[in-house]
């Protein structure tokens, strides 16, 4: 049943956003529980968990931005607009009657304007969100350096790669 309903759940943006909140909250809760086991008070454990997690609001925004970008409705609309535009071009090319070519022009305009509106919508939505810079190196806080070797002479990354 999940297999059938699953893809359609993605159409509901609010549901997707709620699931992101739930996922992040689950992680924060487990971190807090872990800190409590190490004899921290509940408040201290929560504060430490937030510190370990990072900027919750910014991470949530980033996840929402990525999820929205992949919203099936947006994909469907983009394809529809592309078909409308191509349809307009075909009508314009193969028809010589004024009224029909005018329809082709309108279809092309709808295609271009639709894409422009989608682009503006995305730009407006992400204006207040921090855009991750894919070209920038990932920033990590480390007690030691990336090339800190263990007893076998492996770096931390090599240890993860060689773990079974």
């Amino acid at each position, binding site marked *: 049943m999940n297999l059938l309903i699953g893809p359609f759940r993605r159409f509901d943006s609010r549901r997707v956003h709620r699931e992101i909140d739930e*996922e992040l909250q689950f*992680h924060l809760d487990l971190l807090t529980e872990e800190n409590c086991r190490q004899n921290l008070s509940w408040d201290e454990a929560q504060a430490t968990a937030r510190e370990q997690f*990072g900027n919750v609001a910014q991470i949530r925004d980033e996840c929402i931005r990525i999820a929205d970008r992949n919203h099936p409705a947006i994909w469907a609309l983009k394809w529809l607009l592309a078909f409308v535009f191509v349809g307009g071009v075909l009508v314009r090319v193969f028809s010589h009657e004024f009224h029909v070519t005018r329809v082709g022009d309108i279809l092309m305009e709808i295609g271009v304007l639709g894409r422009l509106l989608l682009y503006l919508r995305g730009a407006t939505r992400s204006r207040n969100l921090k855009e991750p810079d894919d070209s920038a*190196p*990932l920033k*990590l806080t480390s007690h030691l350096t990336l090339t800190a070797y263990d007893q076998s002479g492996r770096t*931390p990354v090599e240890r993860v*790669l060689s773990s079974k």
Partner: protein
Amino acid sequence: MHGGAIDRLKTQMTKVRTDLMQGTLELLILKTLSRAPMHGYGIAQRIHEAVDDLLKIEDGSLYPALYRMEERGWIASEWGVSENNRRAKFYRLTKAGRKRLAGERANWERVSQAIGRILETA
């Protein structure tokens, strides 16, 4: 200044900011998921255990990476029930993800080998 604040400042100062090559976190996630499907917290714990706190990765930074990887088709997610009976989102590696892991791993080994040679000879 408050004693606690001084301690926090000292801790901050002793920490060294390290730039990790882009894609390394993704490589670590892919490798971790190659063992078994896991939720975000599990992935973070597994990475922390493996690196013995030599690298401090902010747990939250995993999530945008996970969402981007899912967007690229390297991993897939499904809601399930965690070991403590709570609803959790589990991630698993896809066929494309396995292919990507093999490629990234070979790339990492080639780069680290090259850097190692330079460090030995220079």
